[in-house]
Structure formats: structure tokens, C-alpha cells
């Protein structure tokens, strides 16, 4: 297999990394591919794709908060991997391998900043109410469209588990819709490898009355809709757990046979069969009767 193909396979492994385990996967891949130079050169696109897909967060230089590395936050017209933190209006160069943010620069706010800032403030208070360690980014995509990304991570390698919740919403004030996607991944790996993976797509209409409200009021109405949808999504996950436990799990293997007793193995063996085997050969240390 050519070096190029090996790096391609390595990239596919990296994109499958569970929450918080990309460095472990990278270490394994380094040993397996055994070509550091080729890997270093060829792996960057996969790392970039992973960081954007997984809502990787970074501390904004000079600020006391984190922002999400997102395609929507990419500063246009530059060769650099430069991303905007819309909250502080600071852009920075992001290194997809070391996850470092450098070279901060101030950016001009867009003309829809009041609406964006109102959504951000509603988003932060929503985050505070429902997420334990969440990060949110609100970005203006055009004068009427906004993107909201939420990520919440919990890594506990000493107890062999990790989890990630990602929410993505696109709010369109013109067509009055919220398109949303919630993705949850959990990895539990103590003497095993068990993963929960969920995806939920939703489409919510924004009531006509909302558009005539002030930015602050419309933002809080929109987050009321998002809150309702996310809570419904989490509750329906609970229902699915119940269904899978009651219907599928019990249907696959019973806890005990219908008799409510463990098997009597001597009976199961059948006396005829046992006798026949004993008579025909006395191998395996059998005692003559």
C-alpha cells in the first residue's frame, strides 16, 4: 500500500475518534502507519475536518471565554486558518494540530450585530440553564440568517468514559424557520467498547408575531422554542432507552428460561447420548464405570 493510501486510511480513523480521544487515536495511528513525515504532511485536512465537525473549542486569546471552530466563523479572503469569535469580535489563527489560537486581531461588527448580540445573550442564558460545561457561538450568516452552535463535553478517562453533545441551528427570519440538528456521542470503554450515537433533525416554524418584536424579545422567544425542542429530544431519548430495554434487549436473550430455573445440564445432555459416548471411547480422562 502506498504511503498516500496509508495516510488516507489513517485520516478515516481520525474522523471516527470518540469524544476527547483524538490524541489516543493519533498515537495509535502513528505507530500503525510508521511514517511520521508522510503523516504530518497528509493528516492536516482530516484534523481540520474533525475540528469543524466536532465543534472543537478554543480559548480566545486575551479573553476569558471559549469559542467554537466553525466553517461559519472562518474569516473570508485569507489563506490563513483564521476564525472569528463573534462574542469578542476578535479573530485568530487556529492551528488544527496543536489546537492553539494565535495572532489576535479586532474585526468590525456586521450590520446585524444588534440581532446577533441579542441571540447570543439569550443563548448564554439558555446554556447556563441546561448545560453543565457548554460553549455556544452565534454567527450572522446574512442579514436574515444566523447560525447557533452549542457543544458540551465531559471527558473522564480515569473512569473510562467520555461524552459530547452538539446542537446546530440555522435561524432564518425570512422563511421563519429554525432548522436544527442534535448529535450526542457517548463512549464507555472499561473492559469493552460501548458507544451511544444519536442524531435528531428538527424543523421548527417561528410564529409570525415574533418578527415584529424587539431583537431581545424575539431572541428569547426563539430560545424558548429551542429549549422545548431539546428537552423533547432528551425525553424521547429516554423513551427510546425504555423501548430498547423492554422490547429489544429482553427479546434477544431472556434473563432465565421460561421455567424460571437454570438449566439442568445433566438432563440436557440426554442419558442416551452420554452413555453412547462413554461406551465408545474413554478419552478425556473418563473413569471406567
Amino acid at each position, binding site marked *: 500500500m502506498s504511503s498516500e493510501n496509508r495516510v488516507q486510511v489513517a485520516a478515516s480513523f481520525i474522523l471516527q475518534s470518540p469524544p476527547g480521544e483524538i490524541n489516543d487515536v493519533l498515537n495509535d495511528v502513528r505507530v500503525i502507519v510508521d511514517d511520521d513525515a508522510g503523516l504530518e504532511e497528509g493528516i492536516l485536512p482530516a484534523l481540520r475536518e474533525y475540528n469543524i465537525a466536532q465543534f472543537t473549542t478554543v480559548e480566545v486569546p486575551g479573553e476569558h471565554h471559549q469559542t467554537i471552530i466553525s466553517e461559519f466563523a472562518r474569516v473570508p479572503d485569507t489563506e490563513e486558518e483564521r476564525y472569528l469569535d463573534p462574542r469578542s469580535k476578535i479573530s485568530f489563527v487556529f492551528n488544527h494540530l496543536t489546537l492553539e489560537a494565535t495572532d489576535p486581531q479586532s474585526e468590525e461588527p456586521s450590520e446585524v450585530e444588534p440581532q446577533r448580540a441579542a441571540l447570543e445573550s439569550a443563548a448564554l442564558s439558555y446554556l447556563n440553564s441546561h448545560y453543565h460545561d457548554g460553549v455556544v457561538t452565534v454567527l450572522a450568516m446574512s442579514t436574515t440568517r444566523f447560525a447557533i452552535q452549542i457543544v458540551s463535553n465531559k471527558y473522564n478517562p480515569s473512569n473510562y468514559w467520555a461524552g459530547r453533545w452538539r446542537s446546530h441551528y440555522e435561524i432564518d427570519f425570512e422563511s421563519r424557520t429554525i432548522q436544527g440538528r442534535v448529535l450526542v456521542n457517548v463512549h464507555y470503554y472499561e473492559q469493552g467498547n460501548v458507544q451511544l*450515537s444519536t442524531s435528531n433533525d428538527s424543523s421548527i*416554524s417561528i410564529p409570525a408575531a415574533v418578527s415584529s418584536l424587539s431583537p431581545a424579545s424575539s431572541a428569547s422567544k426563539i430560545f424558548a422554542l429551542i429549549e422545548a425542542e431539546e428537552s423533547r429530544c432528551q425525553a424521547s431519548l429516554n423513551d427510546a432507552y425504555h423501548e430498547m430495554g423492554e422490547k429489544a434487549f429482553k427479546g*434477544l*436473550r431472556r434473563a432465565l428460561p421460561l421455567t424460571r430455573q437454570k438449566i439442568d*445440564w445433566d438432563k440436557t445432555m440426554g442419558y442416551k447420548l452420554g452413555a453412547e459416548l462413554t461406551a465408545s471411547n474413554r478419552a478425556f480422562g473418563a473413569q471406567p464405570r
Partner: protein
Amino acid sequence: MAEGPDPVDSMLDLMRRLPPTNVEENVNALIQICPDYADDLLGSVDQPLKVKTDRATGKDYLACDYNRDGDSYRSPWSNEYDPPIDDGTSPTPKLRKLEIAANEAFDTYRELYYEGGVSSVYLWDLEDGGFAGVVLLKKAMTPTSPDEPSGSWDSIHVFETVERGRQAHYKLTSTVMLELVTKQNNKADETSVLHETEKKASEQGWKSSGEITLSGSMTRQTEQDWPVHEPTSHITNTGKMIEEMEMKMRNLLQEVYFGKTRDIVYDLRSIDDLDKARRQRELQKELVGFIKR
């Protein structure tokens, strides 16, 4: 490559991290990168069991690395390889007799606990005396309606036994692979049957669709000594050990799949308003301080 970590260790670590739903394609990708380690990988990474049909008896059996010779698989029912091969490895006549009996016994076990599915037992002699075997069980559930969950259970029990006088020592390694999938579809007005109402509902309100997958495997080991009176004692002994092990593992899987993973989701997001709870706690503290004064 004189020093540094063993590539096989890295491959096994990697397989413990990547999604269990992709295990087959990831093992194949690893084999393409490192063909020299193909046997190590196929022998140590458990993959979902394949169901095959015995051409001679029409009975289903399970295919895995233990009944494979080249590209052919041996059926425990007819002892034939498919596709047929000359001089494919087969147990000695003595061991084959025990294998036939073990297949019958575990077929009964399968019916009592799984009420369906397929089972297969394969035995082989060990070079330093004694013998080894694998007991395989598989059941899949296909949903009857789109809202019903689907699932599959694969058990792989590998054991080795050495006789010591009238006792035999058993070493058992058990892996259970379990996958459960639920699809969900919701609309603003779930009871609406009419096309027009449905359209109106989705225009006004919301619709959502989702998929939930719980998949993975867990492995446990045990070593035990049991008395041996006759050859079939080995079946009774391994039967009891496997029954006990599956009981433990079923409880463990239930705890991890439906308990642990669910708790972690609630560690990420809370349905209850955390801010409200925080304010309430502060108010309580203030009140307690007020009363104390």
C-alpha cells in the same frame, strides 16, 4: 522496527476506541495497511458472527475465525467445509463426537434462553494435551414496524481445558456484542391521518426525525476447576460456566447500556433548569443563615 510500541497493541487499542458499528471495515483497513498482522488481528478482534446455511442438513451455523480454513467455513452439523476443500482441518474422531454432543446441548441452551437465533460449537485439540473450543450464539431482531427497535446479540465464548486427574481446569474468555437501534419520527400533530392536516401541522409547528444507536462489546474472563467423570462432563462443566457468565454479562450490559450511557447524557445536558436550581439553593442558604441569626 526494533523498538517502540508493538503495532498489534496499537491496533487493538484503536479498535477499542473506534465505533463498534464500523468494526468490520476498520479491521479490513488495518489489514490493508499491515498485511503481516492479519492473523493477529483476525484472532484478537471480535467481529459480528456470520450466519451460514449447511448445504447437507439445511441447518444454519455461525462462521468465525475458529471454523475458517482459507476462505471456507466448516459446519458443526455435517462437518463439511463450504466452499468444499480437500484436507480442511477437522477435529479428531474422538473430539468430533464430543463436538456433536456439545452442539446438541448448546442448541437446547439457545432455545431456552434465546427462543430463536443460531448456535454453533467448535472444538480443537491443543498441542500440549487438552483441548479448546468456542461456543457461539447469535440472535437478531428485525422490527415489525418502523417505530420498533431492532437489535442483535452475538456471544463468543472461547475456552481451554486441561485435565488434572479427575479434575479439569477451564479458562473461559467471553465476549458479548450487542447492538440496539431505534428510529424516531415525530410531527406536530401525530394523530393526523389526512394529508391536508398533516401539511398544515408541519407548516405551523415542527417535525423531527432521529436515530439512536447503542452498540458495542464487553469481554470478561474466568478460570475454574470442575470434576470430570466422563467425556461429556466437559459439556456439563462448560455449560454451567457459560450459563453463569452470560447471566453476569447480561446484567453488566444492561447496567452499562441503559444506565451508564444515559447518566453521561444527563452529565452533558440537564432537562431541569440548572439556573433555577442554583438560585433556589442560594435562597435556602440565605434563609438558613437568617434563622440562625
